[in-house]
């Protein structure tokens, strides 16, 4: 049984069919990439899995249990966490706090125990800090020592991306959804992120589903690649198979005929509608 089973989900925003009849399985320990042109429904797909939106029909199962009807925080409780395409860090809080907040949902004991600093709370707080450091250590010394106590707004863009990944890891999720983890990074930083994602799987034991536009990253780390276009999965398989698939080439580059222009303009409209939705 696959870890994440997505069967035949549909989602429309008003008249716009954002996701149509989508199926995808993610097995434990895999790195699966989702690629596709802008407006193909990749981020909507993530929002459906994480409970931001509910699918109109179909089922999403994680470790055999349906995720339908759960709120985003309940999805995290089940073991699925995400990063955001446009960074959504807690900007005025320190790096350490950013990595501690995602561990809050596992805290046992109510607010009074926290206020009174009961021994059970102190013990958990200590464990939380250890885990935060453990997750931040994935990025080497970049987020350690004095950086721990710096507010996120003073960090460089790449360090913010790293903090966002550390934050998702700190939720203790088994499945991580990474939405364009290398967006806006230079080639050297992208290379580092590639290695980090590999290590997240190999050393951290996470299963990873990622959306990415940088093909060299996708090609290097993906076990499988799924290609979306207009809310449908048009191809799935190894990177080699997928990039040579004529349908994928068509989705990215268009057909060599006059009809392709219509398709492109529709694509733009669809993207605008999806963004506004």
């Amino acid at each position: 049984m696959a870890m994440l089973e997505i069967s035949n989900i549909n989602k429309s925003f008003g008249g716009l069919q954002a996701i149509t009849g989508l199926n995808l399985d993610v097995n434990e320990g895999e790195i699966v990439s989702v690629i596709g042109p802008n407006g193909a429904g990749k981020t909507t797909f993530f929002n459906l899995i994480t409970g931001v939106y509910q699918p109109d029909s179909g089922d999403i199962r994680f470790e055999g249990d349906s995720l339908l009807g759960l709120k985003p925080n309940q999805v995290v409780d089940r073991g699925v966490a995400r990063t955001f395409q446009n960074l959504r860090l807690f900007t005025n809080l320190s790096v350490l706090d950013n990595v501690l907040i995602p561990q809050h949902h596992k805290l046992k004991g109510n607010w009074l125990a926290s206020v009174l600093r009961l021994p059970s709370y102190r013990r958990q707080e200590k464990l939380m800090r250890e885990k935060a450091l453990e997750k931040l250590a994935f990025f080497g010394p970049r987020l350690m020592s004095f950086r721990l106590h710096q507010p996120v707004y003073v960090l460089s863009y790449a360090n913010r991306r790293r903090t966002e990944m550390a934050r998702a890891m700190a939720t203790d999720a088994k499945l991580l959804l990474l939405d364009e983890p290398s967006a806006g990074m230079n080639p050297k930083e992208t290379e580092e992120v590639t290695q980090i994602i590999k290590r997240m799987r190999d050393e951290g034991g996470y299963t990873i589903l990622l959306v990415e536009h940088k093909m060299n990253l996708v090609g290097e780390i993906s076990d499988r690649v799924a290609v979306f276009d207009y809310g449908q999965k048009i191809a799935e398989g190894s990177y080699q198979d997928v990039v040579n698939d004529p349908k994928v080439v068509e989705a990215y580059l268009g057909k060599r005929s006059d009809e392709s222009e219509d398709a492109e303009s529709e694509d733009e409209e669809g993207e605008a509608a999806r963004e506004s939705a």
Partner: protein
Amino acid sequence: MTDDKRTRNIILTLVGIGIVAVGLYFVDSYGSTKLTQACALFAIWGIAAVSLNLINGVTGILSLGHHGFMLVGGYITALLILPDAGRERIASSARNQMNDFTLGLSISNGFRALGLDGLTTDDTLWVRFLIALFIGGLVAGLFGLLVGIPSLRLRGDYLAIVTFGFGEIIRLLASTRLFSPFTNGSLGFSGIPSGIGKSVWWTFLFLAITVAVMAKLKFSSHGRALQGIREDEIAAEAMGVNLARHKVLAFTLSAFFAGIAGGLWVSWLATARLDVFLFFLTFFFLVAISVGGTGSITGVLLGTALVVFVQQYGDPLERTYSVATWVIAGGALLIVAAAATLLYRNLKRSRPRLNAAVYVLLGLGAVGIIAGLVGPSMGYFAEDFRAFGMRRILLAVLLIVIMIFRPEGVMGRAEFSWSWLFRERRNEPTDEERAQDAWLSNPELNKQKNAAFSDKNVDDRTPDPRERDM
């Protein structure tokens, strides 16, 4: 933190508490009535402002209904501790709106029923007061829960309007036929024992408890979650924070302490009437929070001190003066404003040091002073004028000035701590860490060291992944 520093901090904290206690002792023993009352008011409003800060500053939800929660706590405390004499006066009054049942609702009666007559004397008033205060806080917390629930569906401005509406609804409900047996309608209660509300010891004790709870909460896992909600609600939810539970927690706790503040305040005033729980109360706390620094408990206390100072010692501003005096004062104020602008720009080394606006200010100020001095002898400006509401105007102007020159408030988000006072910042690199940073950003130096922490040699990988066998 090293053990040395920890010991130092503990000693400093004890010394600090000692100094405050000695200060309170002198205020209590030798201070004027006005000073004692100002200090007690600072503590009471401090409790309310710090509790409002939990919603507005820490959780980032704009709530404007704090006066409603204070009213609930205030009226319940008043009803429960009203002395028997006061009850008889209400019962014999022609405008009595209470009934036998509500007139009998007092802690004294409860103790009598339990056979604890020893606790119904004047000496043991504080026991009854504490119980009443606690009950008042609990009921206010219940109201907070009621207001917190709609907050789950609304955001930003809409929620602010709802909380404002709730605050007003609570105030108006108290005067309706349904609740007037409990509140004595618009007449309210008078003759409430003011021993605790006007005692600096009691009020500062409650302030200390409130600040301790709020500070411990803010720096706990729950507090971090609340701050996460403030920073980014969507991200907080995506990181597993249960928005509903935490928002309701913030509202309930905040309303509980507001209820306590309300109970102390009716004691300070010795009366509970509907017109002491106006929106202006919430406005004062908002000014205190904004001036001091949103989310910073230290800042909120500083802001409260300012608000209370203006309220208690600003009465000369509202006395009657001749118009000439006002004109001179206005002129002097303009000159001070011009001087302050110059000073500020010099300090900040920003923009032209002198520009037309400053000259205009100086000129107008000079004209005002001369006109005020010369005017009366020529028969102008002789009438008297009294500026009602000048203190509130002053507070509003202060708020505007702070918003222009330091929008984050005096303290910003910083909190007082000994390491803050001694500028021991943990977020600035040591020399060693700077060196570490240098090799991180230098590709020549960090080639091997990168490998050391990643356990993988980065240069070993295939240059183009597409050439690899999949």
